[in-house]
């Protein structure tokens, strides 16, 4: 270069553009080679790999990639430690989503104090989802605040200084999905729960209010983090997190699948996907799937598969509250939420877990305008001392309450038993109250065999052969309990050949679409849940 050229003023922005490149490259390094290797050794992906694994190829537009702590020598930049949160706009199946997550390779993904939060509780990513009304996906791998922040700030922060108000607002507006991909305690654990659907990876993720050191200090209990908050506890036992994945790849596939049933926000209709499965497909197996012997259960999941669009079922909370099956599916391409009692577990009786599961699923579907289909085989609320001690009655009535407040269309198919308050909670009492039943159906305030002994106690006791008299009364009552007799009185809208179930439901679900369009938008919640 000539002396004259060296002294010439810089006319473009090449030096700054070079600096920008350098800063971006630093952001890509995350916590550095060693920290990333350590993370990989634990069978965990980095936040950038997670985002890439979830979204449509090349669709990530990062926001805030320059955030972090610059290192300077004599005023010259030598490196940047990125902020431990990566986020931005991306596409999943061609639809925009806001996505973000903690970078565990930098200080374990603990909070970072910039001028504006990037994500976690509040922050840009939640503002983006709320402002543009697009789904939010949280990829959680952080342990929240640290007591060391007292040192940094010189004072203790009041709880809620970075609060959940935006997270709560989102619950009524756009789909929120959280994946727990590491050990989540405190704020990030709470953030995971404030979602419409959550998932964790078996073996590599745990979730709890506080981890083993705090538990030992508080209660003297020595417990490892997997036993405290692994998937066995958090998903199967407690239902704190909805679904489990065997690895991160399956987790991302499940998130995509979940979002495929969701509208972008509560002002839009759920997406229709027609796979060409005929609406009038009639499966012969349905005619004999329910055993004539009332004591014998059957495979309710198989029944749902025979009725719904082929391959369209996605079960929510499959390992929690197993007396009830909750699933998204499609009927003639339209999304429906299925609630089906599972006779294989407590004969389908609604226990406290099933009640909680039902309450959440009805509210979820109602919020996103997804019509509900009940496949009913419920003998009532679960009975017994354990059930009473667990507040089954209160949780059960909460499920009934939420169903009565929901305004999305509901369709009731009585497969076998439909008794008592749990049965009532499976109907659309404030809507069309449209109930179709199979010939195997039976209903009432309570099952005959339980009710006779109580209602006819004196008559039975006075009979020469009390047992025989009890059986006689049961037989008399049962002869009048035929579903056809209720159909004569229009107490049930129709009795159908089980093979007609799909066609019948598809007609009505198709017809309800126009009505659903008239009620789009957020759902108001009034009153006090029991």
């Amino acid at each position, binding site marked *: 270069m000539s002396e004259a050229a060296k002294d010439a003023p810089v006319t473009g922005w090449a030096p700054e553009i070079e600096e920008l490149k350098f800063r971006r490259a630093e952001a890509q390094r995350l916590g550095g080679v060693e920290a990333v290797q350590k993370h990989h050794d634990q069978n965990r992906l980095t936040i950038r790999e997670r985002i890439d694994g979830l979204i449509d190829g090349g669709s990530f537009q990062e926001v805030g990639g320059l955030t972090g702590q610059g290192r300077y020598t004599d005023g010259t930049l030598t490196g940047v430690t990125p902020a431990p949160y990566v986020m931005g706009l991306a596409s999943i199946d061609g639809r925009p989503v806001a996505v973000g997550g903690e970078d565990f390779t930098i200080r374990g993904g603990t909070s970072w104090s910039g001028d504006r939060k990037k994500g976690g509780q509040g922050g840009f990513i939640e503002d983006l989802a709320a402002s543009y009304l697009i789904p939010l996906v949280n990829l959680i791998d952080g342990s929240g605040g640290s007591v060391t922040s007292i040192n940094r700030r010189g004072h203790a922060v009041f709880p809620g200084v970075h609060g959940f108000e935006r997270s709560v607002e989102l619950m009524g507006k756009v789909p929120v999905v959280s994946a727990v991909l590491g050990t989540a305690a405190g704020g990030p654990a709470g953030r995971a729960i404030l979602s419409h659907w959550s998932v964790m990876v078996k073996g590599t993720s745990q979730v709890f209010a506080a981890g083993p050191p705090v538990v030992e200090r508080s209660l003297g209990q020595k417990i490892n983090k997997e036993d405290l908050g692994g998937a066995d506890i958090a998903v199967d036992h407690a239902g704190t997190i909805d679904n489990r994945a065997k690895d991160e790849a399956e987790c991302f596939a499940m998130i995509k699948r979940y979002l495929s049933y969701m509208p972008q926000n509560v002002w839009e209709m759920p997406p229709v996907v027609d796979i060409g499965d005929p609406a009038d497909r009639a499966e012969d197996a349905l005619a004999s799937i329910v055993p004539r012997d009332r*004591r*014998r*259960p059957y495979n309710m999941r198989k029944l749902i598969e025979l009725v719904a669009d082929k391959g369209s079922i996605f079960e929510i909370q499959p390992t929690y509250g*197993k007396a009830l099956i909750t699933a998204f599916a499609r009927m003639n391409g339209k999304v429906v939420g299925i609630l089906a009692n599972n*006779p*294989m*577990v*407590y*004969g389908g*009786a609604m226990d406290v877990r099933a009640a909680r599961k039902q309450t959440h699923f009805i509210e979820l579907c109602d919020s996103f305008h997804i019509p509900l289909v009940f496949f009913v085989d419920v*003998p009532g609320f*679960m*009975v*017994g001392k*354990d059930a009473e001690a667990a507040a089954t009655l209160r949780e059960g009535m909460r499920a009934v309450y939420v169903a009565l407040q929901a305004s999305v269309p509901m369709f009731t198919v009585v497969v076998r038993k439909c008794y008592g308050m749990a049965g009532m909670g499976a109907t659309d009492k404030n809507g069309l109250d449209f109930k179709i039943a199979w010939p195997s159906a039976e209903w009432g305030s309570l*099952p005959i*065999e*339980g009710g006779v002994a109580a209602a006819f106690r004196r008559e039975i006791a006075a009979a020469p052969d009390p047992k025989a008299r009890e059986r006689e009364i049961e037989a008399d009552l049962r002869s009048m309990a035929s579903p056809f007799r209720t159909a004569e009185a229009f107490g049930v809208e129709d009795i159908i050949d089980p093979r007609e179930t799909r066609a019948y439901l598809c007609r009505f679900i198709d017809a309800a679409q126009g009505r659903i369009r008239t009620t789009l938008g957020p759902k108001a919640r009034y009153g006090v849940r029991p």
Partner: protein
Amino acid sequence: MAECEAKSEVTGSVWKIVTAVGQHVEAGDTIMIIESMKMEIPVIAEEGGTIKAFLVKEETPVSEGQVVAVLES
């Protein structure tokens, strides 16, 4: 050889053991039947194997999640 446990999904009582020690079962087969909520709830083998031992007898009460049989696969 790996051992696996068969658990009762429900609280109830053992109504009928429909298999025998030494018997081979396939995944999905019924090992025993628990009576609960006036229903016959099967305990189903999650994977195939040979029944090594029963940990309960007929008419004994069982709790939800209780291991009722051990299988070898």
